[in-house]
């Protein structure tokens, strides 16, 4: 276990970068997800088609292929940003597709009468969505969205292949100098659990907080 204890500083830095990457990407993914979900339930056909295309593309592309396309391909069209920003871009666009699907299924669980009541008192589509449907839909999707954050934190490990020094790259680098590989792997696993387990617990707390009787 010495291999882990000697390098606690590196692991701490790894956790910090993984957390930062996950939180920033997640915030953007939620914004993207909200926009795409709105597109997908709107009465405007081209927006619905655009939303569907977005979801089908980014839900079905392997993250590694998306990373490669962005990190190697985008500089060819003159888009050069830091590796961290590439990672945020890729992770948030990818996760955004899943967030929008979660939101859409949440919108579909809101009883039809709610939207009908909102319309009958004269609210517009935007108002219906913003004031009546989404506040209820968001409550039902706390659990799936929380799971998406956990999945995102795990997926952020792929950034290690594309020059972001986070937890998984910390593990990869340490195995080059230390011989005790298995303890390092266990240490890295514990670091990930330090992120995902509290995230799961927090999801539960939030879900109970916002719950309401129907």
């Amino acid at each position: 276990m010495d291999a882990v204890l000697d390098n606690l500083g590196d692991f701490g830095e790894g956790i910090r970068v993984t957390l930062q990457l996950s939180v920033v990407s997640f915030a953007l993914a939620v914004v993207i997800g909200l926009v795409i979900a709105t597109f997908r339930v709107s009465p405007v056909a081209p927006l619905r088609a655009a939303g569907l295309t977005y979801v089908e593309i980014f839900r079905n592309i392997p993250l590694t292929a998306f990373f490669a396309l962005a990190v190697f391909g985008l500089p060819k069209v003159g888009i050069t940003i830091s590796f961290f920003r590439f990672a945020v871009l890729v992770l948030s666009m990818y996760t955004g597709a899943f967030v929008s699907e979660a939101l859409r299924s949440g919108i579909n669980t809101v009883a039809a009468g709610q939207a009908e009541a909102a319309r009958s008192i004269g609210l517009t589509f935007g108002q219906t969505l913003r004031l009546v449907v989404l506040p209820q839909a968001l409550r039902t999707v706390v659990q799936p969205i929380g799971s998406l954050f956990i999945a995102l934190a795990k997926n952020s490990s792929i950034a290690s292949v594309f020059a972001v020094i986070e937890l998984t790259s910390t593990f990869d680098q340490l195995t080059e100098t230390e011989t005790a590989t298995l303890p390092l792997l266990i240490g890295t696993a514990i670091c990930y659990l330090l992120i995902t387990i509290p995230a799961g617990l927090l999801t539960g707390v939030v879900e109970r907080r916002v719950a309401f009787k129907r």
Partner: protein
Amino acid sequence: MSAVLYDQLGPRGRRRVRIATIAGYIGIALVVWVALQRLADKGQLEGRRWKNLTNPDLLEFFALGLWANVKAALVAMALALVFGAVFALGRLSRNPVVRLGAGGVVELFRALPQLLLILGAALVMPKYGFEVSGFVYLIVALTLYQGSVLAEVFRAGILSLDRGQSEAAYAVGLSYRQTMALVVVPQAVRRMLPSIVSQLVTLFKDTSLGFVIGYEELLRRGKFATVEFGESLLQIYLLIAAVFIVVNIALSHFARWLEGRQQRKYGAAGAAASVTGVEDLAVLDTK
């Protein structure tokens, strides 16, 4: 489906939607135009860059790479199904030691990044005398992770079955083993089939992580190809992304078709369980 959000539109509403529709088309056209302009500016639309993609040697090289993905996915899926079945039954066992052990394994592997498991397999196994090929490391890691996810799918499938089924089986004198093998598992598997197929999408996507440990799958071969065909780098990665997307969309549609067939065949109750199964997975497991 979401038509409940808006009424049958009146003349003014229809006019607004028409305007928004036109604006939407213009917006999309604008985005496409800006993207194409950018590509053209950097010379990425030049014919010579795209022509390389029709090079038969390159296509064969890529086809073999794709086959490596398919092969890894099929082998890992077969093993993960076995792993998942064993650990799902373990978690449902009446022996508390088996139950806790199986639960611990499943929860642990589900909580770790797939990539960490792949790197872990490739770096740790040789230290203990298992110096094998990248293919084997990839299969081991995929099986552990996907098997654990599938174990949860199976467990949910078994638990979703009406208690009356197993009670009836016990009532006619079947043992625990017989009840599971003859009554519960066959029904649960049928219910979970769409979820299993959509898990295959995740698994297929993850085979591209073989890239990291030098397993020669499609993405790794794409990287090789960019050395010889440097001018077509962007085009090669676009092609590879498109191939993955097409295969995965086909698999997802197959899962949806299975689900619809189930709904028609076994009625709403069975279908409801499988629908939530798929929904949960799509959201829960997003690799």
